[in-house]
């Protein structure tokens, strides 16, 4: 128990701080705000955890609350989390521990750099170590551990999508040779039916561009970034080590991936483990090549676009997907009011992908549902995405919000492919 005794508030008529004359009645703001109504022990316990220190910096300005996507469908934000912990909530056993999608919109506006992208994984790791994990998420962790993907699909089927692509993809473990581009397919493009649609479209576009590329096939494993953010750091490290060993076996000059989460891992996290790769998201790779494509068809669709948090806010790429949309013949593009740096979140990040029912009990609607409504409001008939989590999330949300027939969801690569046929 570390109850802080009320300090004496001092107001100096004349006060010079660091050479600055701040005389006046408002200078008492520089006194520590004394908290005596609550035990600060629980907060101090959390902020003592490595990675979670910055939670202590919050001064309750409230800017994050209006930025937090979860707050728009519930009651959430770093400010609220801070206050709850300060007034006695044990966050490590509270559902709030799992609601943050690590979308980073709060960090963008926080004057004190309270960093949920660091706080949440650190606290969740403690909960995971105490085996306190929501069952859905536990299943995703176990699947990733056992099969190398959170969907629990067999590893040997990872490259099965290639068969029906109608365009070649070199599966490097079967056909060993140096390639220009190593394409890191990731789990949802490898296994999810809608992800496979996009993967096949990608293969066809690569063929049209004449790129020399290959994939790791059954040897590829989940990059594990979302599992890391959901608190399973050990799992992330284990799979990262395996992936790094696998990648070392093959020769390639650059890497491209379908998934902003894999992009984030390979760009920002794997280097911390000593492995650096020239990695691009596929929109970054393709945007400059769009001019070389032999367009066959105009696509007269009204479209809008959803920025993936881990491509946009986390890695600063807003232009590449927009440039692709701009160059596909015929598309009429409208932005949603929340876009780019202030883009909304689909709810899939930070483990949210595997917490749908859990989260559903604590919010009024899913983030993906809110986002689908926003897309419909623009008058668009198609929501364009470029993250493998999003097609299925948004298609489900189109159904659950009764917008079937009004809004289609397409990966941008599917539109490129369509315009080439």
């Amino acid at each position, binding site marked *: 128990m570390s109850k802080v005794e009320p300090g004496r508030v001092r107001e100096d008529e004349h006060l010079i701080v660091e050479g600055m004359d701040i005389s006046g009645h408002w200078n008492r703001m520089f006194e520590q705000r004394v908290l005596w109504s609550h035990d600060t022990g629980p907060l101090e316990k959390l902020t003592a955890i490595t990675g979670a220190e910055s939670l202590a910096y919050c001064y309750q300005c409230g800017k994050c609350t209006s930025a937090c996507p979860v707050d728009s469908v519930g009651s959430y934000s770093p400010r609220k989390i801070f206050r709850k912990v300060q007034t006695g909530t044990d966050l490590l056993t509270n559902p709030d521990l799992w609601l943050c999608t690590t979308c980073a919109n709060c960090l963008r506006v926080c004057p004190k750099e309270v960093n949920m992208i660091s706080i949440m994984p650190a606290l969740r790791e403690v909960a995971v170590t105490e085996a306190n994990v929501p*069952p859905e998420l*536990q299943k995703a962790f176990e699947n990733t*551990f056992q099969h190398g993907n959170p969907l629990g699909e067999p590893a*040997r089927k990872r490259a099965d999508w290639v068969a029906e692509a109608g365009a070649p993809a070199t599966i490097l473990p079967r056909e060993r040779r140096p390639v220009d581009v190593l394409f890191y397919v990731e789990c949802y493009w490898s296994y999810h039916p809608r992800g496979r649609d996009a993967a096949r479209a990608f293969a066809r576009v690569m063929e049209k561009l004449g790129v020399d590329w290959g994939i790791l096939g059954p040897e590829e494993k989940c990059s594990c970034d979302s599992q890391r953010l959901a608190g399973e750091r*050990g799992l992330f*490290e284990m799979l990262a080590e395996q992936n790094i060993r696998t990648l070392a076996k093959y020769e390639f000059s650059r890497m491209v991936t379908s998934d902003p989460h894999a992009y984030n891992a390979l760009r920002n996290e794997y280097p911390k483990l000593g492995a650096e790769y020239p990695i691009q998201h596929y929109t970054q790779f393709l945007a400059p090549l769009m001019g070389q494509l032999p367009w066959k068809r105009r696509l007269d669709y009204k479209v809008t676009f959803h920025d993936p948090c881990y491509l946009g806010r986390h890695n600063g790429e807003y232009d590449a997907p927009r440039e692709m949309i701009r160059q596909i013949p015929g598309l009429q593009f409208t932005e949603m009011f929340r876009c780019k740096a202030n883009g909304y979140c689909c709810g899939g990040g930070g483990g949210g992908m595997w917490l749908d029912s859990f989260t559903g009990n604590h919010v009024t609607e899913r983030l993906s549902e809110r986002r689908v409504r926003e897309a419909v409001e623009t008058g668009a008939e198609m929501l364009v995405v470029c993250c493998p989590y999003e097609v299925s999330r948004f298609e489900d949300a189109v159904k659950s919000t009764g917008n079937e027939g009004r809004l289609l969801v397409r990966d941008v690569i599917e539109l490129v492919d369509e315009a080439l046929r």
Partner: protein
Amino acid sequence: MHIAVVVKQVPDLVEELEVDAAGTGLDRAWVKMKLNEFDDHALEQAVLLKEAGGAQVSVVALDGEGIDQVLYAAVARGADRALKVDAGTQEPLDSRRAATALAGAIRDLGPDLVLTGVQAADDLFGQMAPFLAAELGWPHVSVVSQVEVAGAAVRVQQEYAGGRMATLEVDLPAVIGVQAAPQPPRYVPVSRLRQAMASGALETATAGAGAGTGGAAVTQLAKPEAGRGAEMLTGSPDQVAEKIEALLRERGLLRG
């Protein structure tokens, strides 16, 4: 209290299973193995007993491909010791032969209580616990969903058809076939698993003479044949009800 938990691996049903060329077993080339889920519950029950009253938990398995990781995971979950028994083969044994192969090592270990899964996906007879008990000459209860220590005995909840439960007291030492632990098996964080693997603390034992004999020989293994498909009854609810009644009568399933 010293608890031994007997575990084994079963084929992971994520993979499509194929019958081997001989027609008597699974084609193991692509089979991925995982811990039998009932054994997982037995282990959870043991760890719960340890947490409740301070038992020592030893996990025991026959040697075989991938078994090390299963044992390390058990240590990460809370087992104090892990024992790998070499029965002279890496091939999976049926329950009868596994029980004879394990009995000696378990006797040497000297536990007060043996817990194992009530059954396994590749052996639905549920005979592992009774065979082990017979080998050891100890009492046995199966289809148990809760175990509590009661002095020199354990009190167990045994499940019957129709949702009935019995509470039984069994003198120790005893063998219990666990259907379900009172709570789902807890998550094993990978960091802890890796710690366990780094510690490398697996013990080994050799199955005694006569181990791994007996048992049933599989003469044929085949995929179930698909039925002819369902017959859909159409019409108003009353008409459908009449048709159902007629069908049941026709097949001699209704009296009177």
